[in-house]
């Protein structure tokens, strides 16, 4: 198996009095393609934000084996963005350079070419000058993927990239995701669609405040931690069952 790239050690995150994540531990290996699953409010986005460095853990830590400014490309949840901000598609893709070049350095022709290639790759050629406010949900998500391409990072974190996206865009973005995976990048993706998880994501992590399971997706399905007939209530009882197991093992 590949080397561990990101190690979570007893990670906990609180928002005020509310525990979003409690004692989450686990390893993401280099070059892995991992889905993070779990019901709403289970801490999926919180985990991704912590990995991206947007929020700091209350306790525990995230250890990266490789470091550097351009190590992580983060695609936030679309609902956290202000879609009516007056900026063009090209400019938004260009913000992918910000972590590297900061405030003062020029973008330059070489980087402009990279942006135009990235937009071409997601099928947005000809959209360069459009305002992001004019894009459909699918087109906006494509533009965000173009920014991820521009960032050219070894670790890619995606927060619900397929929400409110049309079928054609989804298949195009999935192809891109698999291309990143085949190119040796480490991809961690929050998503709801179990069918998609089963089909495309070799690894998964199931969250519900705590980490219910992490590992091969098919194993998690076998253990019923991921299951098509589990709704949220059942996931809850699954969690309690696993807690009981832990308690018993402590007793023993």
């Amino acid at each position, binding site marked *: 198996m590949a080397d561990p790239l990101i190690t979570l050690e007893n990670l906990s995150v609180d928002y*005020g009095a509310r525990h979003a994540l409690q004692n989450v531990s686990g390893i993401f290996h280099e070059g892995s393609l991992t889905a993070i699953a779990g019901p709403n409010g289970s801490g999926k986005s919180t985990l991704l*934000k912590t990995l*991206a*460095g*947007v*929020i700091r853990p209350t306790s525990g830590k995230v250890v990266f084996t490789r470091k550097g*400014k351009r190590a*992580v490309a*983060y695609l*936030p*949840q679309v609902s*956290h*963005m*202000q*879609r009516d*901000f*007056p*900026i*063009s598609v090209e400019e*938004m893709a260009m*913000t992918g350079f*910000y*972590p590297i070049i*900061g*405030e*003062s350095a020029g973008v330059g022709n070489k980087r402009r070419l990279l942006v135009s290639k990235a937009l071409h790759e997601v099928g947005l050629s000809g959209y360069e000058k459009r*305002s*992001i*406010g004019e894009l459909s949900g699918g087109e906006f998500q494509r533009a965000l993927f173009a920014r991820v391409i521009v960032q050219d990072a070894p670790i890619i974190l995606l927060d619900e990239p397929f929400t409110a996206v049309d079928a054609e865009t989804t298949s195009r973005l999935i192809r891109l995701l698999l291309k990143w995976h085949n190119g040796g990048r480490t991809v961690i993706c929050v998503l709801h669609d179990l069918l998609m998880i089963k089909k495309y994501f070799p690894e998964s992590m199931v969250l519900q405040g705590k980490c219910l399971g992490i590992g091969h997706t098919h194993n998690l399905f076998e253990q019923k931690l991921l299951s098509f007939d589990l709704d949220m209530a059942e996931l809850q009882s699954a969690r309690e069952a696993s807690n009981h197991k832990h308690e018993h093992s402590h007793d023993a």
Partner: protein
Amino acid sequence: MTLEALFIEPFEQFAFLRRALVACIILSVGGAPIGFFMNQRRMALVSDAMSHAILPGVAIAFLISGLSVWSLTIGGLAAGILIALFSVFLIRYTEIKEDAVFTLLFLLSLTSGIVLLSLKGSNIDLMHMLFGDILAIDNDALIFIASVAVVTLFSLACIYRGLVLDCFDPDFLSASGRGKLTRPVFFVLFVVNLVAAFQALGTLMALGLILLPAIASNFWTRQVNAAIILSIVIAIVSSYVGLLLSYHTNTPSGPMVVLICAAFCLCSVLLGRRGSFLVYARGRVQGN
């Protein structure tokens, strides 16, 4: 009456009117870009509350050392920053709702400021603090306003990319590992500009030149650079038209300038090229 007499002569004739115009133009250049970002960050209401938050500070400064520009500035800055930190504290550690915090702090600062002023000052001083006196602006105040504009433009250039990112994708900015200073620098710039505008327009209207042109410009263009420049232009034109009208109609100058800004803003909301009522109405007609 010739056109020159109507549009230019008042400024040729009266030094106080020229100074007022210069003050307003400089305020527009620094303040309107700040207003653009405040508006984009959905902080119009917050900035309203903040514009009153400086009052207790300038009141205390006035009690200690009278109407000196520099002490009023220090008092206003200190009060603005303290009240902002206090609001963050309340939001983070209590269950009070965010807009309720701003209502509370807005009324708290306005009333405490007025009570403090009445301890020593006259009604004229109070009026000066609340509405400013743009026709009586002195050299110190002009120099201060100009310095603020220079520092503002320079600092904005230094944090510009981060600021744009923070407006439409704040999580990405946080994840970038850069721009840690973007938010604090912008906030200090905002308070400094409020204090500068306060010298001319008082606490009640300080926001007029900062925020209203920025709100208006958003209805005409969807490009950041164009919107910022347009905000500045609207602010400058409003200043000129407002001062001129106040001269010819013998009405108070500061309120007239802000009134013209508000008129610009309202016309833009109703008739602008993007997202205005006119666009909506046309869409309805075509839809049917």
